[in-house]
């Protein structure tokens, strides 16, 4: 173990990436606006400067920790420099803290407060580019951008989408889609990871809370809400609760208090997805169709296929996403009622998915509105509900049963594990523990493993993050690797790390991951086919099951 002294405290470290990380591990928060543990080091904001014994100043994000090093993070000199840096950033930032959606979560605001920046002594001069509202998922406001470059690195390094980059240079720099285009015309898949890392209000989830209030307050409409699996481990953090304790019961109570009429758990249609997708897969396997079959529940991934891999579309499962399936169920169940169908999702891309023409059936959208975990938390706040102290309640019948297999959809590898459970007929704790060891679990970016199903040896791959997906597909297309089944989730770690979740560090995401499996193990039923509600569902859908549960996306880019 190596040791360094930070602010007079002895800090142990081993293989730390930089001094910033060593400090963090030792509960010293060095301010930074451009550093992110999962992205490359940028060194742009310069707030993380620290001072060594000789008075030399260096940025902690690029400082290699060495045994015996002595630094201070809060000297008079540093404080003065940080104040000036913040002042300089505030000059080119449109401050409207009282009305800004980011207020309270804005890093710039937090630091300005922390370092006592009260006065900006230069004329304010922020970027005058208009707000880009074109995307269904994300809103971009260049006037609040501080050019930390996190969004650009996220889009390029983790997602390899590269829909945005910095254009121009110097003080004219701006984050841009290129050639004056808007997000909607770009390769953006709407995953929202850029907004998740944005320290200010320059990139935000499209806020549709007011739509929701409008529907709730409309007495002639009933409001039905489905809640995705990952929400139960994401929302807790917003209210100071640990992530590894699922809070689905509190979410249901809160929704009832908000005035929602019907509340469901999307895990049910996750089970339904497994039934449909497994059948589709077995069929393809039997018919000798081109494999691998790719999963279809992630809308950002679907968008990516359309943009980059249109030729792979025939290999993508035709199963609609669990959200879409639940939307169809609600429409069938409440055919006689004017129901406003809402989905609470960990995902920003779902907002765009709900608006897709393929999700309009019988001239009606299957889902009217998608709210992200963050927006739900905001509504709970707005209603003055003390979430942490809410009692639990149960979702509504008849769709109130689900299995652990449905719940684990929220993590990377979850869909795959649910399929394996179903295919192998694993219903006991023992058999599930065995599956857990086959290679499907874990937060690695790409996992590849084999399972034996009867007399077939199935090769399976799981990827999260679109850059990892690209790597995997390259291997598949080059013939280097072959898989029967491939699960892809656009967001790092799967839906628990979705763009609609409260933004979190990797430690938090690992807790969420644990939380999902806690929820899974608390279920009495663990494999999708055990879900007793499924019979009723198929009865309800009658001969329209295939039509309503499957989606056929166009397999080529509209020319």
């Amino acid at each position: 173990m190596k040791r360094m002294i930070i602010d007079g405290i002895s800090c142990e470290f081993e293989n730390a990436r930089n001094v910033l990380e060593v400090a963090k591990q030792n509960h010293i928060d060095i301010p930074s606006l451009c550093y992110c543990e999962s992205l490359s080091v940028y060194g742009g904001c310069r707030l993380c400067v620290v001072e060594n014994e000789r008075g030399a100043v260096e940025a902690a994000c690029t400082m290699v920790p060495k045994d015996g090093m002595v630094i201070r993070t809060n000297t008079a000199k540093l404080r003065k420099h940080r104040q000036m840096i913040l002042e300089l950033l505030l000059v080119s930032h449109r401050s409207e803290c009282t009305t800004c959606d980011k207020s309270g979560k804005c890093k710039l605001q937090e630091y300005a407060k922390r370092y006592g920046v009260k006065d900006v002594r230069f004329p304010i001069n922020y970027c005058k580019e208009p707000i880009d509202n074109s995307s269904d998922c994300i809103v971009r406001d260049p006037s609040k951008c501080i050019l930390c470059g996190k969004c650009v690195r996220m889009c390029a390094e983790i997602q390899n989408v590269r829909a945005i980059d910095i254009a121009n240079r110097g003080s004219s720099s701006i984050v841009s889609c290129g050639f004056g285009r808007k997000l909607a015309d770009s390769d953006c898949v709407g995953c929202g990871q850029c907004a998740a890392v944005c320290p200010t209000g320059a990139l935000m989830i499209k806020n549709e809370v007011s739509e929701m209030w409008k529907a709730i307050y409309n007495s002639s409409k009933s409001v039905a809400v489905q809640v995705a699996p990952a929400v139960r481990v994401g929302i807790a953090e917003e209210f100071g609760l640990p992530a590894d304790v699922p809070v689905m019961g509190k979410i249901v109570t809160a929704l009832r208090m908000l005035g929602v009429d019907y509340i469901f758990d999307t895990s049910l249609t996750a089970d339904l997805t497994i039934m449909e997708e497994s059948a589709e897969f077995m069929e393809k396997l039997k018919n000798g169709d081109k494999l691998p079959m790719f999963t279809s529940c992630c809308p950002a991934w679907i968008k990516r296929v359309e943009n980059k891999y249109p030729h792979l579309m025939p290999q993508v499962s035709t199963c609609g996403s669990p959200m879409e399936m639940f939307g169809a169920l609600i429409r069938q169940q409440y055919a006689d009622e004017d129901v406003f169908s809402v989905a609470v999702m960990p995902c920003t891309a779902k907002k765009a998915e709900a608006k897709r023409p393929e999700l309009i059936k019988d001239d009606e959208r299957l889902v009217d509105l998608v709210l992200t975990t963050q927006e739900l938390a905001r509504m709970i706040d707005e209603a003055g509900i003390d979430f942490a102290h809410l009692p639990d309640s149960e979702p509504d019948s008849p769709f109130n049963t689900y299995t652990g297999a449905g719940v684990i959809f929220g993590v990377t590898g979850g869909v795959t594990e649910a399929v394996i459970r179903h295919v192998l007929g694993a219903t006991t704790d023992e058999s599930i523990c065995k599956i857990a060891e086959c290679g499907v679990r874990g937060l690695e970016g790409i996992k590849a493993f084999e399972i034996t199903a009867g007399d077939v040896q199935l090769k399976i791959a799981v990827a999260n993050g679109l850059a990892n997906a690209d790597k995997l597909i390259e291997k598949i297309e080059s013939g280097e690797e072959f898989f029967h089944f491939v699960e892809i989730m656009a967001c790092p770690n799967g839906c628990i790390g979705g763009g609609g979740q409260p933004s979190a560090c990797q430690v938090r995401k690992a807790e969420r991951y644990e939380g999902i499996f806690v929820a899974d193990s608390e279920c009495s039923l663990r494999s999708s086919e055990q879900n007793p509600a499924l019979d009723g569902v198929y009865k309800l859908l009658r001969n329209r099951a295939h039509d309503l549960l499957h989606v056929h996306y166009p397999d080529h880019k509209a020319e």
Partner: protein
Amino acid sequence: MTKVDFKLIDSILEKYGCDKSKIIPIMQEIQAEYKFLPEAALMYVADKIGETYAELYGVATFYKDFSLNEKGKYVIKVCNGTACHVRKSDDVQEALYEITGMKPGDYISADGLFTIERVACLGACGLAPVCTVNGVVHPQMTPDKMRALIMDLREAERS
């Protein structure tokens, strides 16, 4: 609108093997052809070499030599290196704006003849202040010489 000859772009791309790292020389060749970078040409290049529009635009707008706007027939670069500055290149620049009727920020003069660029040292400090017209160096400029130069160019256009 400038018409882009995609066959020509193809031949440039071929020369550089569609190599992403050669994007700067590729753009330099396109600019040598059109005097600026037509948007259609850049988008075509982006698609061919597998860069996104955002990235290509980012590179094109980073370097001052690249222009996404059409340029005048005569591109006049006024050197504002230290040596030229000390020898009053500002006055020359001002005279140039005045006689062409342009102002800082304009891409092209109303008659389409001139584009003014301020550059940071042409490396001919011994002849300060200097300017170049389509690459030809004019040494030891004065406001009067500048006015005369523009008059001559206009005259040449008329005949």
